[in-house]
């Protein structure tokens, strides 16, 4: 089982509410800023995109890469974080 970061655990532990997009695992300051510029200022907006893509990993990763230039690890972290959140709360 791959280890998850503290950020991941914190995010998945509770409903995301109004958490900013930088609260997502894999999304730091730089990526968060880029996402905010594109209009994805809250974590739930990214969740929306994730759900619109039907939680498909490949599509979500591509989208993340296109939108904020995330690398493979960051994409994976973000995807895993959102997926686990959905499994727990959706």
């Amino acid at each position, binding site marked *: 089982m791959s280890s998850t970061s503290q950020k991941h655990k914190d995010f998945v532990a509770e409903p995301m509410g109004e958490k900013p997009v930088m609260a997502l695992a894999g999304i730091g300051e730089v990526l968060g800023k880029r996402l905010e510029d594109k209009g994805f200022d809250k974590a739930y907006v990214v969740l929306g*995109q994730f759900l*619109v*893509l*039907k939680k*498909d990993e*490949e*599509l979500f990763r*591509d*989208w993340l890469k*296109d939108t904020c230039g995330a690398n493979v690890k960051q994409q994976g972290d973000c995807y895993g974080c959102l997926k686990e959140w959905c499994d727990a709360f959706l």
Partner: protein
Amino acid sequence: MPFAEDPAHLSKSRLKSDLVAHNVALPSAASKKAVYVELHLKHIDQKNAADFSSDEEDRADDKKDAEMPVPSCLTDEDLKAMLRKHGVKPGPITASTRVLYERKLHKLLQSDRRERLNEADKAVLYSDSEEEKKQQEKDQDSGSEKQPDPSDQTQKESSQCFLPSSRLAWLFKRPCPPRNTESSSNWNSRNALKSSERSQSQCSQIISTSTADHHTGLGSTVLPRSKSTDDSSLSSQYFSITQMVEEMENSSSRSVTDNACEFNGTSVQENWAQSDRPPQEPVKDAFKDILPGSKTTPTGIYVTRRRPIKGAAQRPVQYSYPDSPVSPMTQQRREVERYLVPIHIQILVFIIVACVLYLIYVNVEGSLSYWSYGEDRLLVQAESQDAEADYAQD
């Protein structure tokens, strides 16, 4: 022009404009509508009939071409349908998701095309015997007429089609398929030419048809076309053909993405004329690489030289490595230190000097005490002498 609308149902002005549009001489202005209708029926409907027949042929081709449409030209619904065909269940196609789904469809189409190419290659190899029989039958049926013309035509086409496998050659090859299909049909009806010419042109046809099919991604059509045009000489030359097909496949795998982007669902020839449409981004780099003709490998495989393995032949293992890079600060420090005396030597010199001084001090101390002792003795002697002298005087 509406297809099934009766000209009699159109208004007079409409008929007039239609006639003008089709370059038909208008009757006098006072003519009755019936005259217009008659003219309309006479000229325009005939033309439409002719157009329809040619359209059908084009449509047949277009339908085949339409199987390989450009993902970005599709409507949302079409895109969804295409994705479903490939077993993908797409979510809503919105502004944000459209690009992603287009890309996915593109990948699926490419993989499909590759599969079909592989099948086509195998089919070409195995269909020789059938083709021979068919060709022989056709030869028996038809007489020979006007042999030089089609041969010239096909030779020209073959010379065109045998251009080196560069990207531009692909563009030139495009007109081959439609022409070739016509000439091939003439051919079969008019009987065979000399075997070399025929095989050459057939090779070109096969290649061009196979390339066209690569373009269109239809492996299934390669079979019937190749069957209709192959000759017995094919079997003797099938090595070269398969080699060429492989080359085409490899080059097409490079350029097929570009061609796919350039194809519209409407007609091959039009698009060939307008082939300025920029290819999709992921292929852009390959396109630019190929166009200047910088790296055209025969297999179409691009390989960058990897780092040589240490210890491999002619690459002996280096046990001592060159100096590691140093920062500018260290370099400055080192330069300055060259002028200064090294610290160890400084300490050594200090110790030596200290010892020398100590020895000197000790010696001087010793000699001083000796001297003082000596002086005392002299004094004592002087006093004793004085004392003796005093005694003597008494």
